[in-house]
């Protein structure tokens, strides 16, 4: 006699136990602490904060630990936690020109006030596995210089002063919050930037790369890339002025892109913009390129049908939590649907075989 | 007799540049109007404004509707205009790909307009599709093939069938023979002439090819730099052009 498969609940519990055991790995090996992850896996922590849209290195480290290092899973944990948090208020816009830069490079000018600072970058490392790292006990110390206290004004502003780059529209309007309003197309630029900054790094990178290869090319130079800490200020209504509530590390990228002009309008460069939590340089540059590609209509360019120019395509597919959930849901049971198709195919086959038989007779 | 279409002072600008300016004319039922001019003369802009594909800046496009008589289509709501676009109006694009669904069969391409206005009997839809395919000289056994597998001339004939299946009263055509080989053009023109006469269609045909209007159009409008420079009966305009530009157009044809 047949008994239908039961015990989904027991199976789930057992799977969770096994998962917990696997997460810990060999108990002979010391357990990772959150501080270790936060300090030594800091770029993973940064990515989780950026795509999780929550600036909290400690929580990001916890999420990475819980997710066994699967960063998309960690981002998912952060996102799910984030939605349960109450909204106390909005900060003032952060002033990135007042950033304390750890890194600041420009591809457009050899030097500029405030100077170029390489900072802690992989850029010129030779990608040779460093077997010394396999041994423990390393605590390298970098040489120190006096901090430059000179201001580091944004490089694109030098161009802007001469009218050489397009000025962006200023607005004091509160931008829409894409986590509190359903996405509607066409989206405004602020919504696009929100979607890109929390978008999957790989997806945004791929889109940006496609523009460089000719699918909506926009001739970008990195006008400036800066990484560092900025103060977050909030207006407290009871006080009537802004107070600093903390600091966040950001990566900002402004690209200087192909110029445009006409007989009546003098030629100007245009820009793309990227701003991402943490040291997340690849993402910020990618974001700036995709932002610029999406601005084709506003800048009067032709839509060449490139994926990166297609707002609905980019925004609807950039979120890795949406993507991974929907992708993976196809492993859930679908036997009802499958059965329905199975019956239809059988019926269609019977009909064709029937008519072939008739034709033969 | 009420004109089928009355166009009044139609103007379209692109910034400072004039697309077409102050165009007025009447089109009577059963009449075919040709609009000729070189590229950039504003003839395609005019056609797109007439057909509701582009909003003009000024003017009226008054169509004699079945239900309410003459109505300015520019003041219609979008659903009304779209309804008109799939019933009484038809638009034949220069490039058949712009007017066809390349991913579905020829039969579905012809049937779509029928289904859009409520046809719900598969057998009837298919029968009409087959009938229309034969009227545009496409064999019945191609009904389930996709237009990708068709030659350029066949695609254009399919587009015409797809447009005419609902018995429209006004057809807009944008260079219907453009991009086709000369021998294919001749066959298509012949077919179009037959259909126009047989169905008593009213049509507005934009072309730079004077041979096309000579064959199809009752009346002619010559455009240059967005303005109409000469109008009249086709034979009259072509045989005895008054405006210098028309004379140039006609003579350049004769030289070829």
């Amino acid at each position, binding site marked *: *006699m*047949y008994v*239908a498969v039961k015990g*989904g*609940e027991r*199976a*789930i519990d057992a799977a969770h136990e096994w998962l917990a055991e696997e997460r810990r790995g060999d108990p002979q090996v010391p357990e990772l602490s959150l501080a270790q992850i936060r300090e030594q896996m800091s770029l993973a922590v940064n990515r989780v904060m950026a795509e999780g849209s929550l600036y909290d290195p400690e929580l990001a480290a916890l999420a990475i630990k819980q997710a066994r290092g699967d960063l998309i899973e960690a981002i*998912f944990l952060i996102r*799910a936690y*984030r*939605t*349960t948090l109450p909204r106390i208020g909005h900060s003032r816009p952060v002033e990135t020109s007042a950033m304390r830069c750890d890194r600041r490079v420009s591809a457009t000018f050899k030097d500029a006030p405030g100077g170029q600072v390489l900072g802690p970058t992989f850029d010129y490392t030779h990608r040779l596995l460093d077997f010394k790292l396999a041994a423990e006990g390393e605590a390298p110390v970098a040489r120190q210089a006096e901090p430059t206290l000179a201001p580091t004004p944004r490089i694109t502003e030098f161009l802007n002063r001469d009218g050489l780059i397009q000025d962006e529209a200023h607005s004091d309007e509160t931008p829409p919050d894409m*986590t*509190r309003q*359903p*996405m509607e197309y*066409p989206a405004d630029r602020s919504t696009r930037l929100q979607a890109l900054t929390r978008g999957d790094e790989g997806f945004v990178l791929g889109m940006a790369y496609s523009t460089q290869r000719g699918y909506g090319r926009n001739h970008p130079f990195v006008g400036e890339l800066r990484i560092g800490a900025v103060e977050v200020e909030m207006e407290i209504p009871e006080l009537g002025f802004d107070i600093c509530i903390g600091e966040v590390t950001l990566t900002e990228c402004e690209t200087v892109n192909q110029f445009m002009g006409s007989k009546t309008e003098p030629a100007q460069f245009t820009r793309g913009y990227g701003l991402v939590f943490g040291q997340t340089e690849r993402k910020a540059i990618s974001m700036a390129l995709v932002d610029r590609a999406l601005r084709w209509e506003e800048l009067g360019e032709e839509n060449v049908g490139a994926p990166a120019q297609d707002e*609905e395509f980019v925004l*609807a597919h950039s979120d890795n*939590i*949406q993507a*991974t*959930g*929907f992708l993976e*849901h196809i492993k*859930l*049971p*679908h*036997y*009802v*649907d499958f*059965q*329905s198709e*199975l*019956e*239809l195919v059988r*019926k*269609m086959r019977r*009909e*064709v075989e029937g008519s072939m038989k008739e034709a033969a007779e | 007799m009420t004109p089928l279409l009355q166009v009044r002072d139609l103007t379209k600008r692109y910034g400072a540049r004039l697309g077409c300016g102050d165009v007025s004319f009447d089109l009577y039922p059963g009449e075919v109007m040709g609009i000729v001019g070189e590229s950039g003369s504003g003839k395609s802009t005019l056609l797109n404004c007439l057909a509701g594909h582009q909003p003009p800046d000024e003017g009226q496009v008054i169509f004699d509707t079945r239900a309410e008589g003459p109505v300015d289509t520019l003041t219609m709501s979008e*659903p009304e205009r*779209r309804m008109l676009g*799939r019933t009484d109006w038809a638009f034949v694009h220069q490039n058949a790909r712009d007017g066809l669904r390349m991913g*579905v*069969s020829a*039969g*579905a391409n012809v049937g*779509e*307009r029928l*289904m*859009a*206005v409520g046809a*719900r*009997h*598969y*057998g009837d*839809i*298919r029968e009409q599709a087959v009938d229309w395919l034969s009227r545009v000289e496409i064999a019945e056994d191609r*009904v*389930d093939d996709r237009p990708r597998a068709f030659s350029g001339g066949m695609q254009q004939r399919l587009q015409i069938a797809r447009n005419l299946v609902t018995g429209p009263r006004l057809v807009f055509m944008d260079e219907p023979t453009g991009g086709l080989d000369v021998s294919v053009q001749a066959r298509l023109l012949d077919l179009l002439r037959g259909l126009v006469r047989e169905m008593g269609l009213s049509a507005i045909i934009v072309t730079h090819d004077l041979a096309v209007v000579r064959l199809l159009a009752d009346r002619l409008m010559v455009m240059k730099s967005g303005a109409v420079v000469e109008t009249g009966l086709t034979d009259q305009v072509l045989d005895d052009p008054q405006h210098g530009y028309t004379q140039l157009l006609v003579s350049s044809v004769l030289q070829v």
Partner: protein
Amino acid sequence: MTAMQHDPAYNFAYLDEQTKRMIRRALLKALAIPGYQVPFASREMPMPYGWGTGGVQVTAACLTPEDRLKVIDQGADDTTNAVSIRKFFERTAGVATTEHTNEASVIQTRHRIPEAPLGAGQILVYQVPIPEPLRFLEPRETETRKMHALEEYGLMYVKLYEDIAHNGAISTAYAYPVKVEGRYVMDPSPIPKFDNPKLESGAIQLFGAGREQRIYAIPPYTQVVSLDFEDHPFEPSKADHDCDLCGCGTSYLDEVITDDAGGRMFVCSDTDFCAARQAEGHRGRLSGEDAA
């Protein structure tokens, strides 16, 4: 079947009250315009998109402490995802749960409508992956919204026409499109077309698509017509067998492979329905004498 205390770390049914109110407003709008897809600010839930986040949010917005909840997936109460969602609400809402269709006041489902007729006082919540019935004909949201607004459904029929032209029959077996109250074409979620006639029901039917941020609804006793051609009418088909456990000849069946020699059996996909029939003494081809 037991009510429990809900986990005090979370608000009742997980979502905060403001979010629930936002969802309820969307639900009321959806009920007022049957079949119309209402955009809503879907929240990020602690379960993956595509796994019922839309249905879970709708259920959360509907639940009251007095409700009795049933959760099914593929018609069964004990499939893993149904178990997981039921546990979620047991923990966060502490509501009573049940496997019996007639006892439930709220039923969340994926891919099936229960066999037993639903009635007044019951809410059926569907999990929806892709709410847009025109999506695979026209991928662009801006375009499909316009098509709905202008009631331009010719393209939908083009698809059905193509099916018949190439396959001799309409080849949509599930997520079979319907027209609601003569106006909106709607995706009934991936239920088998066998279930389509049950969309005309005495219960309130709510559809939630979390990832796609849409909610839509069918109010009780609303006309729901499956699209078809006059000469190729809609057929709510099922496997041509009886249930091998309860002998039912009219229920939707799962096919189960029983050995590697081509042996198979058919059993009701609605496990509660099948168990109830067996309890009443109905027997199928393969049920033992002592099956009850």
